Every structure is written in structure tokens, then in C-alpha cells.
């Protein structure tokens, strides 16, 4: 995995592909590599849909190996939604397959003179790029079926739906799962719109004839992986809670905390929460013949996903995640799991970020386009995006655009990216991360690694208010490093509680690459990534004034605890003091 595949979609005479060594990017993977390439090669002030932007697709440092949980793939670019640097990552099969094909990254460059609809095929024989207008404006599900007919069922697809072709701000990049369904998405920041601007509808990967990547020290790697898996299986979150109920296990808990944004962030408790909780979802799936426990890629041992089926047992969608159930559910006043699963399926098919779309529908409901709680109206509104109507294009451009078009003041975005499912007034520390992340409002930008284990910025006193800022900083640094490994962020819980599991992760990286990294080196990597991203955003025109939550979070008391966001601007400005 030492090669970068660059494809110039704007080359004279048609797209041209060339492979080159990693060079200065050696030692980087996942988010580290996507952000390094964007920071070094993309003019920060360029138009995100123009020829100077690049779309970088990179597996992690451990992808394609036998390392458990190493199936995340990063997609990076200058974001058409935020205008800043973007890394959006996804599960599915692509990271493992791309890594086994020896590619550290695919970089789509340039821009075709006219709108085209290209498919790129990559296997051990090489690369082929061809125009196929018959794929134009297909949804991801139909698209994958067509590609399966053409290339068989051993493929893995990276694709866009209608939203990407229309270059909408909420457009995602879809990744197929183990069942060859387009259910996994690099959703955030409009990365699908950049792929659409490059004229690429699908990248078809086939790793037939390849082998697992071999470690420099196979025995040490095997032992470290075993210890890592043991730690994940023994932990209450990664070994029990997530497999049993998926991420949606959070609905009841966040709702109880009064931090569940309901009716477009108007209040923090949703009366119908228990009807759409992970517990109810798992029972519904199981009793209908679906699955409540399923992995999104080979090598996953947590298996937090599932299969949602209708009352007759027919497949509807993968198990909607917590963020999706919230965005299309409580945020819009909808307590019907069947309707939410339909909306999830539509988002996946059209190629839309479920968080951005649910937030956009919530703002539209506040504007009076539909009533809160009206599931059919929500389904119809998302349907407008698939049809490409004017209203659909507005909705598919994200919550910020919907707010501006319809004159809504309560628009929950930072850097124009919609907030996820935790209100920053009820959990103030996550508001610090929402405000200051290089990515816009993003719950995964500052996830959960024990700050003291990583020894970032010294020991934090959790009882001091300043701890919120310091913890957010530490978490953002640590998360950036984990994103570079290609590891699923859900490993964080076992690492948080079990020092030996954290050590096993470092041992795996060292044994595989023949390195001698310490926790300090991991921290340094995270800081380096954040530093590159921050510098890119500054050159793109972002300042301190962009590291703020919308005004209503300071002015509107949030029931049931009736709190406002109280972290000062000065404290927010100190997050990047490192």
C-alpha cells in the first residue's frame, strides 16, 4: 500500500490515470493522508466544485490487514458545504479492498469540460475509465445492481446518487457493505458533490487475486490483534451494548439527559423516544426476521449495525444509526421506526447525508413546509431531492440553505454544517467541539480517547470549567490520530477504560509497519493533522468568528433544564493554543 493513484478527469483527450509513490506522504493514512494532500495541493480559496479541488479517497494505515476494526475509509476535499477542509469517513468494504490493491489513496483531479458520467474500474489487471451515460441519475441501489450485472458480485463500489450528480451540499459518497448494498456513506460535508463535479459516478473495485497485507513482524502483529480483539469483546460497550442495540442505544439515554434535540432544537426531550429507541428497534428487527447485530465490513468484531425489514420481512435498509433515527425522528417529531427506515433508505439511494437531511427537514418544518410529526410529509420532502425539483435542490443543499431560503432563525449549523444529535446546551463540552472543529459541527471530531492515557496537554481537572475546552482539544487531537489508522472510532470505549487495549492498538501499528511509536507519537500525529487542517481553513478565509455556535444557543433556554450555552468566546478561542 505504497502507491497513490491519480486520475486527472480534465486531461486533454479524456481522463488520464497515473500511479506514483507516496513520497512525502509516507507514514500517513486515512484522514492524515487526505488532509495532507488537500492542504498541500488544493488552493484554499478555490471553488470546491472547480478544477483545482481534489477528491482524495484513502484507506487507513491498518486497512487491508487482519487487524480487527480497520475498515474505515476517508474521503477528503475542500468542502462545498463548509468551504473548509473536509474529511468524511465511512465503513463498508472499500478500505480493505483498496488497501489490498496496494493503493494508499485515489486522487480525483481536474474537471471534465462537459458534464460526464464516468465509471472507473480498478483490479489487479489495472485501471479502466469509461463514460457510461446510461448510469446518469441512477440511485445508488439501482446503480450497484447495474454494476453487479456488468462485473459480478465480487466487486466493491464507491458511488454517488442523484444528489452527487446535482452537486448538492448534502451529497454523500456511498460505499457498499458485505452484502454489496450501498448502505455505508462518507456523508458529511458534501463530498459526493465533489465526486459529481469530477464527473465520476462510480469506482468499481475488485481485489480478486490479492492477499491480506503482511506485517513486518507477523507474530507480534497477530498477538497484538488478539489482545485488541479480546479487549473489545470484554468491554461492556463494544462487547455488549453496541452489538445488542447499535448506536441507537443512545436515544433513551440522551433523551433522559435532556439533550435530545427535538422539533429543530426547540427542546431536549422527545415524548416518543422510547418508541424509536435502540431497544425497540432491535426488538422490531428481530421479531420481523431482520438482524439487530451485524458488521458493516469484514473484520468487524463490534457489529453495531443490523438489517431493518418491514412487517413482511422484506429488506428496507441497514439498521438506521442513532444520528439518523434522531435527525429524521425526534428532530422532526416523528416516532415511527418504519418511516425513519424508509427515509434512511431514500438518503442512501439518493446519496445524502442523513444528519444534514434530517436537520434540513427540521428547519423546513419550522418554516411551515410541513408539520412536525408528519412522517409522510417528510418522506415526500426527501423525495423532492431525488426528483431534482427546485425545492428538492434547496433541501439537498443542507440546513443552512433551507434556513436562508425560508427565513428561519433557528438553524443548527456551524460552518454551515448541521449539528448532530446532541444539544450543546445540555452537554456543553460537545458544543466546544462543534464550534471549533475544523470540519464544522461534527460529533466525531472530538470522540472519546482517554486524555490522560494519551497524555495530551497534561492532566485535566474535570471539575474546572476550563476542563471543557482542554478536554475538547485533547479529544480532537486524539480523534484525528485514530482517523488516520482507519480504525472505527467505536474502539475508543475499550481504549478509554482498558490501558492494555490501547497498548495493543499501538503494538499492532508498530508490528505491522516495523515502527516503535509511543503514545506521544500518536498524539503528535493528531496535532500535525489538526494543524494542517486549521491552517488550510485560515487560508480559506476562516477566522475566530467562524468558531461559534449560532446565536440562539446563547439566547434560547433549552428545556427541560432551561440552560443556554455558556462557554465564553475567549475559551473557545483557546482551543487551538497548542
Amino acid at each position, binding site marked *: 500500500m505504497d502507491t497513490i493513484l491519480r486520475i486527472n478527469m480534465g486531461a486533454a483527450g479524456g481522463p488520464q490515470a497515473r500511479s506514483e509513490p507516496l513520497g512525502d506522504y509516507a507514514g500517513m493514512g486515512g484522514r492524515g493522508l487526505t488532509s495532507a494532500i488537500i492542504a498541500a495541493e488544493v488552493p484554499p480559496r478555490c471553488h470546491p466544485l472547480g478544477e483545482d479541488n481534489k477528491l482524495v479517497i484513502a484507506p487507513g494505515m491498518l486497512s487491508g490487514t487482519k487487524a480487527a476494526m480497520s475498515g474505515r475509509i476517508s474521503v477528503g476535499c475542500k468542502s462545498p458545504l463548509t468551504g473548509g477542509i473536509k474529511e468524511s469517513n465511512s465503513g463498508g468494504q472499500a478500505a480493505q479492498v483498496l488497501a489490498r490493491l496496494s493503493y494508499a489513496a485515489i486522487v480525483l483531479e481536474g474537471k471534465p469540460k462537459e458534464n460526464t458520467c464516468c465509471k472507473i474500474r480498478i483490479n489487479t489487471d489495472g485501471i479502466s475509465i469509461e463514460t457510461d451515460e446510461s448510469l446518469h441519475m441512477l440511485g445508488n441501489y439501482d446503480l450497484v445492481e447495474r454494476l453487479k450485472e456488468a462485473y459480478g458480485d465480487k466487486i466493491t463500489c464507491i458511488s454517488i446518487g442523484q444528489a452527487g450528480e446535482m452537486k448538492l451540499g448534502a451529497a454523500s459518497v456511498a460505499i457498499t457493505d458485505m452484502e454489496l448494498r450501498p448502505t455505508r456513506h462518507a456523508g458529511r460535508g458534501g463530498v459526493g458533490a465533489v465526486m459529481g463535479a469530477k464527473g465520476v459516478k462510480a469506482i468499481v473495485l475488485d481485489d480478486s487475486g490479492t492477499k491480506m497485507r503482511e506485517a513486518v513482524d507477523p507474530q507480534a502483529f497477530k498477538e497484538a490483534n488478539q489482545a485488541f480483539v479480546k479487549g473489545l469483546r470484554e468491554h*461492556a*460497550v463494544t462487547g*455488549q*451494548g*453496541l452489538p*445488542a*442495540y447499535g*448506536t441507537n*442505544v*443512545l436515544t*433513551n*439515554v440522551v433523551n*433522559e*439527559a*435532556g439533550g435530545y434535540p427535538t422539533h429543530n432544537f426547540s427542546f431536549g*426531550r422527545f415524548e416518543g*423516544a*422510547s418508541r424509536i*429507541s*435502540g*431497544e*425497540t428497534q*432491535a*426488538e422490531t428487527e*428481530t*421479531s420481523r426476521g431482520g438482524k439487530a447485530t451485524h458488521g458493516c465490513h469484514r473484520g468487524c468484531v463490534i457489529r453495531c449495525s443490523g438489517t431493518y425489514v418491514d412487517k413482511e420481512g422484506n429488506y428496507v435498509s441497514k439498521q438506521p444509526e*442513532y444520528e439518523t433515527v434522531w435527525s429524521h425522528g425526534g428532530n422532526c417529531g416523528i416516532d415511527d421506526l418504519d418511516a425513519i427506515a424508509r427515509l434512511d433508505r431514500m438518503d442512501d439511494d439518493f446519496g445524502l447525508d442523513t444528519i444534514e437531511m434530517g436537520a434540513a427537514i427540521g428547519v423546513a418544518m419550522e418554516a411551515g413546509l410541513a408539520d412536525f410529526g408528519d412522517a409522510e410529509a417528510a418522506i415526500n420532502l426527501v423525495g423532492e431531492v431525488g426528483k431534482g425539483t427546485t425545492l428538492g435542490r434547496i433541501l439537498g443543499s443542507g440546513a443552512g440553505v433551507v434556513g436562508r431560503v425560508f427565513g428561519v432563525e433557528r438553524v443548527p449549523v456551524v460552518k454551515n454544517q448541521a449539528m448532530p444529535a*446532541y444539544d450543546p*446546551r*445540555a*452537554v*456543553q*463540552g*460537545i*458544543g466546544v*467541539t462543534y464550534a471549533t472543529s475544523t470540519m464544522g459541527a461534527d*460529533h466525531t471530531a*472530538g*470522540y*472519546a480517547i482517554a*486524555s*490522560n492515557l494519551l497524555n495530551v496537554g497534561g492532566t*485535566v*481537572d*474535570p*471539575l*474546572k470549567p476550563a*476542563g*471543557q475546552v482542554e*478536554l*475538547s482539544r485533547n*479529544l480532537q487531537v486524539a480523534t484525528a490520530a485514530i482517523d488516520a489508522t482507519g480504525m472505527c472510532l467505536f474502539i*475508543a*470505549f475499550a481504549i*478509554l477504560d482498558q490501558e492494555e487495549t490501547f497498548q495493543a492498538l499501538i503494538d499492532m501499528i508498530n508490528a505491522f509497519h516495523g515502527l516503535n511509536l509511543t503514545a506521544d507519537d500518536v498524539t503528535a500525529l493528531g496535532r500535525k493533522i489538526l494543524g494542517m487542517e486549521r491552517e488550510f481553513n485560515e487560508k480559506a478565509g476562516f477566522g475566530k468568528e467562524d468558531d461559534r455556535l449560532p446565536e440562539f444557543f446563547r439566547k434560547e433556554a433549552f428545556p*427541560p*433544564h432551561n*440552560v443556554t450555552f*455558556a*462557554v465564553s468566546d475567549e475559551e473557545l478561542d483557546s482551543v487551538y493554543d497548542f
Partner: protein
Amino acid sequence: MPFAAAHIRLAVRESRLPVFYELLAAGFFVDAPQSCSIRQLLTDVSGMDAEYAEYRIQTVFVNGRAVDDFDSPLVGKDAVVALSAAMPGLVGAVLRRGSPLGSMRGVGADKGAPGTEMSREVPITLKLFNQVAAELGPGFLAAGIRIPTARLADFLAKHPDLAVEAVQAGGKNRPAADLPEVLAGAGEYICLFVKIAE
């Protein structure tokens, strides 16, 4: 159970028991000494094993605020206590008992106030989530949970496949077919018993 005018008894297949966890998550009433501690509520009142309470219940809310200390007293007559295992996500980690990320809550923990009166019993709403519901739910359901009648009526309407084995109202057994009538006349609260069908 001072508010329960009627009892509903259901017998279901074991595989269908999880459908009732929705009711446990929505909350049911238990009577506890006023100002008792969370620990007393869990062990003395609810009969939980002390070790289970200490190690399994990693996330506790009192009146919607995360609590770190099991020995803090419950105050007020309408206390709501919610119990969960350890949860994923940054927020899940932030809300855990004794979390090193606790300062990120911002709204603070509900520390309550020292209790003075331990003799009088008051109703406390108890909510069980996730693994805690799966592990303790069967016991609570078998012993009976007191819930709003309207909530049970909505729930049974949503799940017509649940077979009602017996209905008791006013101390008398009634035919299952009388369920709608019993629900209509049950008053604000009702006691639901669920057992595994043989």
C-alpha cells in the same frame, strides 16, 4: 400500590418479552422512603444485587441530570431515576458515573440535598434502559409495574399479538375480553404483570 385499581396479567413467549422494554424505558412507579439514597432505592427497595448495581449500572440520571454518587439522596416527591449500562459516544462517556470527561456536561450533576425524613414512602419513577432493562426487566415485569393506564392502552393497541391471559379488576377475575372495559374504568394508573408462557 395505592394508585392501582386494576391488575392486568399477561403471559407471553420469552422471545416477545423484549417488546415490554419500551414500557420500562418510559418509566414505572416504585414506592420508596422519602429522601432515600440511590443505592437504597436500587438495593433495599428494588432488590438489586449490590455488586450488580455498582458495576453494571454505569449511567444514572436523577431528574434528567447525570449522577456520579450512588449515595446522594433523592429529593422531592416526583423524582425520576433512570438506569443504564455504559454507553457509547462522547456523550455516553461524558454521562458515565465518575467520568473523567464529566466537566463536559456543563449543566452539572444533580447533587440533591441531605434527607431528613426517611419514614414516609413516596412514588418514584424508575426507568430501565438497554442491558439493564434486559437483565432486570423480566423480574420487574413478573412482580408487576405500575404505569399510566393510557400508556398501557396505547401499547396494547400497537401490539395486538400479545395475548392477555387474565384480567383482574376490583379484586375479581374478569374474562380477557373485558380488557377494554377494564382499561376504560381503571383510573389513571394500572398494574401490569407479565410472565413467560409455559
